């Protein structure tokens, strides 16, 4: 399939990463969000990512600011995705929000177009149920920072067709990404496990067993992880982590997914991690 235009719904952390990756690989992104302010911020972030990409990766294509700008269409009108070859949805990790978006998307996207649902934990089968094309809905779990990650978790929903999987793999091939295909259950493989790490790390911090730095150091220096669970949570956004834990708790009805009170308190205090400048750590401006 020729990917000329890809719709990107939601211009938050991951949405910005998706757009960065598309634009770097010569694909036009039609970015939809609810306000011009969010879109303007997202555009600035994408341009910053593209500008600094060569320092972080030798293999990514070099793209000028002008080229990047010409490959972005920013809009608050969902109808703009009606000309897109594929739609990647990255809206807030909240079922009611996603449900509404998919019901609206169903009305504006041509019936043959496939939707990639980018979600941390919500079941792909549940999301597909909000459309009249469940065979065309596939789960994608992109990791931060999207343009620097070579591998993606792909989730086959109950009704997802082989054609849909094939189209998605072609798109990822254009982005030089490998995919690991798994079956659908809330949290899939990655987040079902990683959120237990992040949540328990928050409990350990709350219980004053160790400082955030020590907790993360044990993961990095003893387990050989690139990042510790608390700095990972800060990178993802503590609000997203909290919402994902709530989805896992709700889905499995298992108390092991109950959100740590300290994590919830930080979210309520507006300490959302890197994006707000404070989370488990403090981040200097920049």
């Amino acid at each position, binding site marked *: 399939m020729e990917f000329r235009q890809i719709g990107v719904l939601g211009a938050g952390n991951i949405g910005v990463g998706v757009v960065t990756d598309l634009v770097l690989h010569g694909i036009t992104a039609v970015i939809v969000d609810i306000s011009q302010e969010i879109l303007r911020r997202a555009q600035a972030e994408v341009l*910053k990512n593209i*500008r*600094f990409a*060569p*320092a*972080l990766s030798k293999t990514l294509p*070099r793209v000028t600011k002008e080229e990047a700008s010409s490959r972005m269409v920013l809009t608050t009108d969902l109808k703009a995705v009606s000309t897109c070859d594929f739609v990647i949805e990255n809206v807030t990790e909240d079922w009611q929000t996603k449900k509404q978006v998919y019901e609206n998307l169903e009305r504006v996207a041509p019936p043959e177009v496939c939707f990639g649902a980018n979600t941390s934990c919500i079941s792909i089968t549940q999301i597909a149920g909000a459309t009249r094309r469940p065979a065309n809905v596939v789960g994608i779990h992109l990791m931060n*920072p999207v343009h*620097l990650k070579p591998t993606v978790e792909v989730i086959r929903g109950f009704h997802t067709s082989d054609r849909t999987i094939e189209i998605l793999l072609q798109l990822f091939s254009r982005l030089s990404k490998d995919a690991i295909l798994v079956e659908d259950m809330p949290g899939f493989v990655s987040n079902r496990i990683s959120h237990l790490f992040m949540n328990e790390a928050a409990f350990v911090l709350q219980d004053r067993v160790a*400082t955030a*730095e020590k907790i993360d150091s044990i993961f*990095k*220096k003893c387990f050989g992880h*690139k*990042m510790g669970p608390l700095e990972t949570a800060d*990178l993802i956004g503590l609000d997203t982590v909290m919402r994902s834990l709530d989805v896992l708790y709700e889905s499995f009805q298992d108390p092991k997914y109950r959100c740590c009170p300290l994590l919830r308190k930080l979210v309520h205090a507006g300490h959302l991690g890197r994006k707000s400048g404070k989370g488990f750590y*403090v*981040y*200097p*401006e*920049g």
Partner: protein
Amino acid sequence: MTSVTTAAESGIKEAVKRFILSSVNIPDLGDDDNLFETGIVNSLFAVQLMTFVEKTFAIEVEMDDLDIENFKSLNATVAFVSRKNGHRVA
């Protein structure tokens, strides 16, 4: 060649060091400690560091400057800023 650290470079070093130490929880930082290889910071920090030097020293990190080698240590960053500012490199 004799190494000479100018007052301007000392000021740059102090500011960059302060910025790095405010971002990571380590008691001190050696002039040539490799920030990325030693795992003191992850590669995303490079973007923060580049943005910081641009704002603080009114310089522009251009396409050809986008090499992690320019920011791998305190000394490398100071040398880069000095070069961009036209100061003598230590």
